[in-house]
């Protein structure tokens, strides 16, 4: 089963690159939802079945695959924005950077002192690559929604690493972390609505009134 898990992780990394290359926001949101669903399926493939595991799978899929895309999608519809225009850094350069980061993640993961049973899995490189791609989206895009998507991709990267430890993490903590993420995204969605109402745009480069003179 672990080879299937590896294939899914390759898919996760491909989705990162797709998101770096696209300007369509709804498409990015769907891509991040697919990533979330994959994250939900993965623990079932590497750990033996248990009630705890089933709960985590259901929780991750519901939160990352359904609820969060729904919140952000709602914000996109209300703000009536379809595309990310003029990111701070263009699509091709960020795509190239994303590819370089992914390669570096593999090199870096080779050197880490992993437990022997995790050595041959792609979890750690996929986690680092996803984290870095999330950062890239977060820092190079202008639209508030793109920044939230970047944050989500980053969180997905962290979760991929957490999957190695699924059995060790108590349910309460995992549920709490997911709930916090959910509420956080919900609040961000509300804030985006207010930004679009206040500025008639969700371009965060307009948020520049507050600075030192």
């Amino acid at each position, binding site marked *: 089963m672990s080879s299937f898990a590896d294939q899914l992780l390759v898919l996760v990394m491909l989705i990162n690159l797709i998101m770096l290359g696209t300007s369509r926001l709804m498409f990015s949101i769907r891509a991040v939802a697919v990533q979330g669903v994959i994250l939900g399926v993965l623990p079932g493939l590497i750990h033996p079945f248990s009630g705890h595991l089933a709960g985590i799978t259901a929780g991750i899929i519901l939160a990352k695959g359904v609820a969060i895309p729904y919140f952000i999608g709602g914000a996109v519809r209300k703000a009536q924005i379809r595309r990310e225009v003029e990111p701070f850094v263009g699509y091709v350069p960020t795509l190239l950077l994303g590819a370089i980061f992914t390669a570096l993640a593999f090199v870096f993961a080779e050197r*880490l*002192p*992993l*437990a022997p049973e995790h050595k041959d899995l792609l979890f750690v490189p996929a986690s680092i690559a996803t*984290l870095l791609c999330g950062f890239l989206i*977060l820092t190079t895009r202008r639209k*508030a929604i793109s*920044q939230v998507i970047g*944050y989500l991709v*980053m*969180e997905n990267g*962290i979760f991929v*690493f*957490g999957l*190695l*430890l699924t*059995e*060790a*993490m*108590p349910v*309460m*903590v995992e549920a*709490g*972390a997911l*709930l*916090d993420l959910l*509420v*956080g995204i919900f*609040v*961000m969605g*509300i*804030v985006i609505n*207010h*930004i679009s109402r*206040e*500025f008639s745009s969700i371009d*965060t480069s307009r*948020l*520049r*009134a*507050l600075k*030192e*003179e």
Partner: protein
Amino acid sequence: MLYALVLLPLVGALCAWIVPDNRLRPITLPAVATVHLALTALLLVNTPPPSPGGWIWLDPLGKVVLLCISLLFTVCAFYAVGYLSYRQERSNRVLCMGLLVCLSAMGLVTMTQHLGLLWVALETTTVSMAPLIYFNRNARSIEATWKYLLLCSVGIGLALLGLLFLAYSTYVAHRDATLLLGPLMLSARELNPGWLHAAAIFLLVGYGSKMGLAPLHAWKPDAYGEAPGLVGALLAGGLVNCAFLSILRVYQICLASGSELAFFQDALVGMGLISMAFAAVFMAHQADFKRMLAYSSVEHVGILAIGLGLGKGALYGALFHLLNNGLTKGVLFLSSGNIHRSYGNKTTDVVKGALTRLPWSGGLFLAGFIAITGSPPFSPFISEYTIVSSAFIEGRHPVGWLFLLFLVIVFIGMALTVLPMVMGAPPADLEPSAYEDRLLTVGPPLFMMAIILWLGIWPPAFLVSLLTEGAAMLGVQP
């Protein structure tokens, strides 16, 4: 009884949600806060033993933070009733609920021994504070909210990665991953050093950005500047202390591991000095007095980090300063909120002669300024003096001298803003305002100022022993 401390504010939040009347609703705040303070006092005297699984235990470090939070919240709660009576133009439902949910999460932060649960509670405080920064509903406050929410969420996300690294280091060491503080400290010497090192870095960066240590403080001036005074007080005295407690927990693990401590201490001293330097530079010519308070908060988290980084005698000072800074920031933010209300402006171009226009609030602001810059007889003087004298005793002369230099620059910079604000005559063309100093808006900060004076002149014995116990937890290797 510990659980009551978490559940009570949640029940209060529910009540605040149900109460339909905008004038009556804020009363839930002091009602909950008074019971909370009473519970806290009971728990400090009569501490329950650790829970069976070891998840919940109010240890001396947690007690210090809980005392500060509960006291500050109670004062802010009474102030809120007075303050919100001037802000009847908008609904305060979200504000009241957010404050109470945040109080509940802060309580959980102080009493949990499980680092995962600590993380969840800390993230809850971040999210529940976000709508409160946006209370004023204008373009500037939405910008501040956005920066706060995004930067803190990303920072806390990095801390989660640090936690996972920490759990993984236990997994590599003995195949039984845990995030409970007790077992972690017992097995800290066997943990994989590489993963532990990575964990310490990520946790410091993550919790450091939540605490507002430079260079991770970018959100702080904006959020503190745009939030209402009472929210600013709880951000600077409550959330900062919760984040500092999280760093203390990481410090405890580094201490137990032995090998990691030196690096962590050096990093703390370095970030602390950078924070003080940033504050010193940006404090000068700061026309917006709420932003000035934010930089003062950056300075004081720097002092806390330096105190922790120096270790030994400075630990007592750092813990004492946690309390002093929290309470003094409370006085400053609450009185600055009053001044802001009265002048309808928060820049020194308009705000002049506050002592004439608002004798009480202006006086409190001036007294708070004198206290926060470390002048006797107020208690921040004692804690800062403890830290700096310990630096010299330990032979860390460069750190000690830089610390003093930054304190002097900050004092001058802050005085250049504060003195013109409170002295002189108010501008003649200023319209009279609906705000006037009343018992509920002046009494609470005045009460807090009295405590600061009391702690500075005659610190009570129970507090001294509590702080000594806490410092011992951080100073002796188990």
